[in-house]
């Protein structure tokens, strides 16, 4: 366990396994987060993202495998290592009757070095709420307070577990801007999310996680490119007509790279929409199947997940 650690690596784990009774939450996971990047664990609820991150954070002990964080292993309280990290849990209920500035001050007192309390409040746009009781904050403000408490030690590595889950679009955008500000200052961020927009906007690299395994890894662009096509054509036909449309026929249409079929609706990943759609409509007409719905969009990480698992991210 004393091999020289790679200075470019912020988090590294090999063969990570964690079981809860019969349930395997993390199944032999290998991962590396490089310093200075924003890395995303993208997957549906229950994919094992939180368990994985909490093992990285030293809050859970894996059943097998090893974890290296900023070149160190978790040992005892790990106070020295902790003071270099910023950790935001999925949900923290701060005391209702404390004021915003008091909560940030409390967290600041745990770190030997860090930011001024006032700077943190400015960073998460809570200056005007500094004197307000936690109880009076909105969901988005509470989440920003939680983010502020993770930033107060000016961390080298920041863990954000589902930072925008349950937030309204405006609060979500505010959180994204804060994370983008951190990225611009060269901080390493590891975040988990089941929002593909969030992963593609914020993350330099994304690991798609399902059932405790990494099923795809790369930049959002690479992952989308792995579909072999940048567009998606979705359509649906009536039930009777559905049997008349074999996947092989659809795959043979011009410029189609992939076909996913789910109860009367299809998703085709295609290179060039303008070549596929006329041929598709002609083929449908030929078989007497009238399209009930037809839409096209640029391929997203959601399509990557769907093509890998046959399920949608938010089904969980």
């Amino acid at each position, binding site marked *: 366990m004393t091999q020289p650690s790679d200075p470019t690596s912020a988090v590294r784990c090999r063969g990570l396994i964690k079981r809860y009774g019969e349930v395997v939450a993390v199944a032999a996971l290998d991962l590396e987060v490089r310093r200075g990047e924003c890395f995303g664990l993208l997957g549906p609820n229950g994919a094992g993202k939180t368990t994985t991150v909490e093992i990285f*954070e030293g*809050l859970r002990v894996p059943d097998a495998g090893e974890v290296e964080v900023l070149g160190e292993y978790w040992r005892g*309280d790990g*106070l*020295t290592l*902790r*003071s270099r990290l910023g*950790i935001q*849990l*999925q*949900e*923290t*209920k*701060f*005391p209702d*009757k*404390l004021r915003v*500035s*008091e909560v*940030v*001050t*409390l*967290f*600041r*007192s*745990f*770190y030997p070095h860090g*930011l*001024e*309390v*006032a*700077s943190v409040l*400015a*960073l998460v746009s809570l*200056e005007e709420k*500094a004197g307000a009781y936690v109880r009076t904050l909105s969901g988005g403000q509470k989440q920003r307070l939680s983010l502020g*408490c993770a930033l107060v*030690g000016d961390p080298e590595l920041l863990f954000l577990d589902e930072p925008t889950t349950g937030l309204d679009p405006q609060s979500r955008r505010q959180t994204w801007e804060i994370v983008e500000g951190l990225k611009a*200052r060269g901080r390493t961020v590891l975040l988990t999310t089941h929002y593909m927009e969030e992963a593609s906007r914020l993350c330099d690299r994304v690991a798609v996680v399902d059932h405790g395994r990494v099923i795809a890894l790369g930049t959002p662009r690479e992952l989308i490119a792995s579909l072999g096509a940048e567009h998606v054509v979705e359509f649906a036909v009536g039930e009777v007509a559905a049997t008349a449309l074999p996947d092989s026929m659809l795959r043979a249409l011009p410029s189609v790279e992939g076909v996913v079929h789910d109860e009367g609706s299809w998703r085709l990943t295609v290179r060039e929409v303008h070549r596929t759609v006329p041929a598709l409509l002609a083929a449908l007409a030929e078989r007497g199947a009238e399209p009930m719905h037809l839409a096209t969009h640029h391929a997203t990480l959601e399509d990557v997940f769907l093509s890998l698992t046959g399920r949608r991210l938010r089904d969980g």
Partner: protein
Amino acid sequence: MTAEPAVAYTVRGPLAELTLARIRELTREPEAVFWVFVFPILLTAILGLAFRSRPPEALPVAVVAGPHANTDLAVLSTASDLKPSILPEGEARQALARGRVVLVVSSGDTPVYSYDPTQPESRAARLAVDAALQRAAGRADAFTPGQAQLIEPGTRYVDFLVPGLLGMNLMGTGMWGIGFSLVVARNGNLLKRLIAAPARRSHLLGAQLVSRLIFLIPEAGALLLFAHLALGVPLRGSVLLLVGVSLLGALAFSGLGLLTAARPRTIEGVSGIMNLVMVPMWIFSGIFFSTERFPAGMQPFVQALPLTALNDALRGVMLEGTGLAPLLPELALLAAWGSVSFVLALKFFRWQ
């Protein structure tokens, strides 16, 4: 981070900040302030009122209507501790049965006393009635005794009660104050978040104890001051020893509070355990009546309870002016309860 901060916030050490957070939370909760400070004083005042010392009351006795009745009534009326009245035979028996009078005199050549010898008041009335009638019939007193009447602070019920209430309060606030806040923090993931930040576990639990001890001063002080000034409850021993005993009691119950809150994730869970621990002590530890009323077979259990030890020690210092040495067994028992539960709590504590 280039922007100049508009306000500079002072950041104290982690133990101080955690303690301060605890104190702020409690003082900003009006209910908590009521239960910790106001309730014990109210309870003391109400119980003090209910059990205040009254002048001895005259004993009601009945004389059965008849030829000698008026003579006997006149004789009995001269006795200051009797309140005689004439009633027809039937009514007199009924009044005796219902407890409106404690003795019935049937006048005749020789009077007959009807009373219940198991009632102390009836026996007292019998002695007083007999003495008055005998004296009227010509018996002379052999001598007139001198009398010293003792009604002084320190022997009243309220004097017994106040140290017990103080002990009960130290138990309640120690256990609830610590147990409640820890379980709320665990339930809301706050404990986990604090240890995820580099907060020391010893600071987290230490802040609970320190804030308890800080609260002890106004809490016990208010109750004792009220009892002393308004009810005249004495403090015969040293103030320093009283403070020491209270501190040790508060620490012992803080340890017990920490232990009961070591595992539960919900308020319901911790409430159940708290009651399981505290209800026996409310009953057996001599808050409202002396532990000597329990049979000898139960005494080892009763005497092993931490609240019994605390109440005994508080009564010793306040009412009997006991010094440190005779209280050592009680203090040792408290220290043992406190330290054993503290160690167990640390061992089994659930941080997330």
